[in-house]
């Protein structure tokens, strides 16, 4: 064995060991989701179930409002993602290209919304939604995602992107008689596709993961979204049915994980080229 292949073997050994804590929790979750509660406790180390048993998955849907919770998460994340993309691109283009009084001040306000923790603003927000009679509806969960830190990040990233597009493109289109809206819709948006993909991924993941707002606004099980729903598999004393929890967690994870694995090249490239790298 030459020194070169020895150091190569050492490199792979190090990488494999490093990868274990990153990969093990997810694999364990999927494996244990097919076991009974007793089997999970009996052999906490085991990765593979002795047999594939779908009983946990069936029970999650049969005895709990999990299907409704799943649907809630999907429709909320889709609305949040589309609205974030549209409003973020509009504002990003406005800040990058157009002149109007107060522009810089408004942009600084956006930046500060990106930096401040939205959870720390929750008390006045709650008072507002309570006065509007919107507690225990999805409206605050949706609106606070669109008009919060993620939305501001979208505006910032898309503005940075539009700044890199040569101005001559706008001017040529103006001469061709396209209005501002036409330029935005037909010229700028198609050019911004990589940045839009990155922003869309962030908006979707942040909405899918949102825990704080559902926790304070939603109080009936069938209106919950997944992050709250996953914590609902308990007995009356608060003991957790781990088999059901892990089956539900697997269902909440798999679509995102599969989408990532299938499109990971695209995923990684758009994230790193989106200007996030500073």
């Amino acid at each position, binding site marked *: 064995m030459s020194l070169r292949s020895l150091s190569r073997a050492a490199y792979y050994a190090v990488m494999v060991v490093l*990868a274990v804590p*990153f990969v093990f929790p*997810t694999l364990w979750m999927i494996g244990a989701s097919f076991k009974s509660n007793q089997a999970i406790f009996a052999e906490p180390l085991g990765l593979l179930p002795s047999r594939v048993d779908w009983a946990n998955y069936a029970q999650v849907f049969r005895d709990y409002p999990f299907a409704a919770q799943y649907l809630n998460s999907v429709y909320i994340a889709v609305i949040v993602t589309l609205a974030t993309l549209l409003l973020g691109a509009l504002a990003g283009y406005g800040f990058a290209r157009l002149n*109007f009084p107060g522009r810089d001040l408004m942009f600084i*306000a956006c930046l500060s919304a990106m930096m401040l*923790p939205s959870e720390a*603003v929750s008390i006045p927000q709650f*008072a507002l939604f309570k006065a509007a009679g919107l507690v225990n509806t999805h409206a605050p969960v949706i609106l606070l995602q669109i008009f919060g830190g993620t939305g501001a990040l979208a505006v910032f990233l898309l503005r940075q992107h539009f700044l890199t597009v040569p101005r001559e493109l706008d001017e040529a289109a103006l001469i061709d008689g396209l209005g501002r809206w036409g330029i935005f819709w037909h010229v700028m948006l198609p050019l911004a596709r990589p940045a839009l993909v990155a922003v869309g991924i962030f908006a979707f993941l942040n909405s899918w993961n949102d*825990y704080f707002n559902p926790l*304070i606004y939603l109080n009936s099980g069938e209106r919950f979204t997944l992050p709250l729903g996953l914590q609902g598999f308990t007995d009356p004393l608060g003991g957790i049915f781990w088999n059901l929890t892990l089956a539900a967690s697997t269902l909440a994870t798999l679509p995102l994980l599969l989408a990532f694995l299938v499109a990971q090249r695209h995923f990684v490239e758009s994230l790193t080229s989106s200007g996030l790298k500073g």
Partner: protein
Amino acid sequence: MLKARTAAPPRVVKRRRGWESPWVGFAFVAPFMLGLTVLFLGPVLAVPVLSLLNWVLPDAPTWAGFSNYARLARDPEVLRSTWITALFVAGLVPLNIGLALGLALLLNVKARGVGLFRTLLFSPVVVPLVAWALVWRFVLQPDFGLVNNLLGRIGISGPNWLFEFPWALVAVIVSMVIEHVGLNMLIFLAALQGVPREVHEAAVIDGASRGQVFWKVTLPMISPTVFLTLVVTIIGALKAFAPIYVLTGGSDSASVLMVQMFKNGFKYFDFGYASGIAWVLFVVMLLLTVGQWQMRKRWVHYES
């Protein structure tokens, strides 16, 4: 003839530009800015005002002056939470940035399978926060969890990872870093790949060791990226709530200021007092951000 043709287009552009009213710009930013003003900027300004009220639901608010702040300064729970927040940020941020940089350096090589390792290390980022925290909660259970099970096999009786200080803090930090470090790792990897090869080669020819190349050449060149990542990671650490709350159930040993604010605001519905805690968080964050921008001038290298 030729002269007239080249002169015409700029005049058209100029007229078009002058014609464009500021309302066009407003129209583009208004949908987002209106929502942001009502739902975020307004509430931000309301927080310090609310902190001057005595407002416990369902009672109506009354003026309290600075009494909430006097109570804050004497509240042992809040003082402990401040200390725990400081420890949490001081533990999480260096671990996250250091590990992200180390992993990016390890992945910045030409070898078969590097892409696969990149995918594996990034994959926890797409696992839902609560699912990840629940798995860790099982793995770290004191009696039957995997970690204490393994420790038991080598004769160590493991601590109660979810409730005991400082182990609960360690558990939260490690699980959060493993979940999120992939994002910073990718950002650093992209920055490292942007460092021109010739710069490295020149340094090596000049007799620099690998360590010297890293500290004196590579790190300064990616320092703008490191700085921005540092700012974002610190803010993320200060506002962390879900992973801590799901993993430890809000137990005292890991109750950071965010958890304290949540308890006072939405368990005891003491809105005035919780706003006081929120305002303390704002001020800490503002000071940290300003401090970092000051430091930036000293150690961030910009190419001119």
